[in-house]
């Protein structure tokens, strides 16, 4: 055994431990710093229903996985979601369905950032009215959906539209689209995803 290496390693360890102890402010035991980032909680195949004050359903969130992420060092809480579906309940019936590959709620934020095959579809009368995009943000307090970066493809009856930016009031079902190019396109198959 080469003692010289052993003593050198020990000295190095002492330095590291000493440095660790010096900077550590939380008085946490040393072992937890090295451990991989732990999820606060996670849910699999979860269905979360948020009701209104009068008990009627408001928003139903369905996801294959929901995970609370404790971000270091501030230990703030972010939530990530996979295979997300959000159903919005209107006055009498389900009004909107929103689907996306992933969702993220950053720490201390009321905005859900959805990404990947995002689709917002009206469930009432106008079944052939929906929009699809790559990214969409939802302000859960104001019930507003708005596009962030990618263009939005929209289907409205027999018209297909490409829109530079969008803002949808999910309560009143009113949408505002900017820089719009439309085309009469009676084919009802899925609108092509934006590249």
């Amino acid at each position, binding site marked *: 055994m080469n003692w010289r290496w052993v003593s050198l390693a020990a000295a190095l360890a002492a330095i590291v431990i000493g440095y660790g102890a010096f900077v550590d402010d939380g008085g946490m035991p040393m072992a937890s710093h090295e451990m991989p980032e732990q999820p606060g909680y996670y849910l699999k195949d979860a269905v979360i229903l948020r009701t209104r004050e009068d008990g009627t359903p408001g928003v139903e969130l369905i996801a294959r996985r929901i995970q609370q992420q404790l971000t270091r060092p501030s230990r703030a809480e972010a939530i990530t979601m996979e295979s997300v579906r959000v159903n919005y309940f209107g006055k009498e019936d389900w009004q909107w369905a929103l689907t996306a590959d992933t969702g993220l709620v950053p720490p201390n934020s009321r905005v859900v950032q959805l990404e990947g095959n995002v689709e917002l579809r009206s469930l009432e*009368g106008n079944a052939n009215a929906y929009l699809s995009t790559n990214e969409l943000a939802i302000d859960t307090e104001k019930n507003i959906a708005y596009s962030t970066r990618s263009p939005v493809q929209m289907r409205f*009856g*027999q018209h297909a539209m490409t829109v530079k930016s969008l803002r949808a009031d999910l309560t009143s079902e009113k*949408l*505002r689209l*900017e820089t719009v190019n439309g085309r009469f396109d009676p084919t009802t198959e899925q609108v092509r995803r934006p590249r």
Partner: protein
Amino acid sequence: APSLDADFVWSADVVNSDFRNNTLDISGNVRVTQGPKFIEAQTARARNGQAEKQQWTFEKDVHIRTEEADLKSNLATAAVVNGQIANARIEGSPARFEQVGTDDRQVRGRAGVIEYDFDTGVVKLTNQVWFSNGKDEFRGDVVIYNIRDERVQINPGGSSNRVRGIIRPRQDKASNNTEGGA
């Protein structure tokens, strides 16, 4: 004859849409094109987004152009059937019509209301009509002009008001007469 089956394409600065009432409120540099035809306006509203027959209403600086007709007014409604602009009805004070492609003379008309059938090429002017085939002028209640065979009918269904017209001698004959007579 008009080009058929060209794509019905449109663009605008802003669209306010209401999924519930099936309406598109379109504003800012609105432009609808279908092959060589186009309709321009500052605002438009498309109703019945689902239906095969939709009604589009255009307002402010409305300009409709096809291969054979040019129409201008403050207000216009167009019927769009299966993505084809079928006809347009324009109103103005007055609304204006001009035939396109007649190099030698200017066939024009002004009226409170002008209806134009994109398929048949028939233009119907009503409500204080003034019409000129580039040489003669007419005033009446109703003028029906067929662009394709250039036939004009004035007050075809009869009217309480009389037709008034100015028939001018043909330009070449007029000049011969003056030379001969001098």
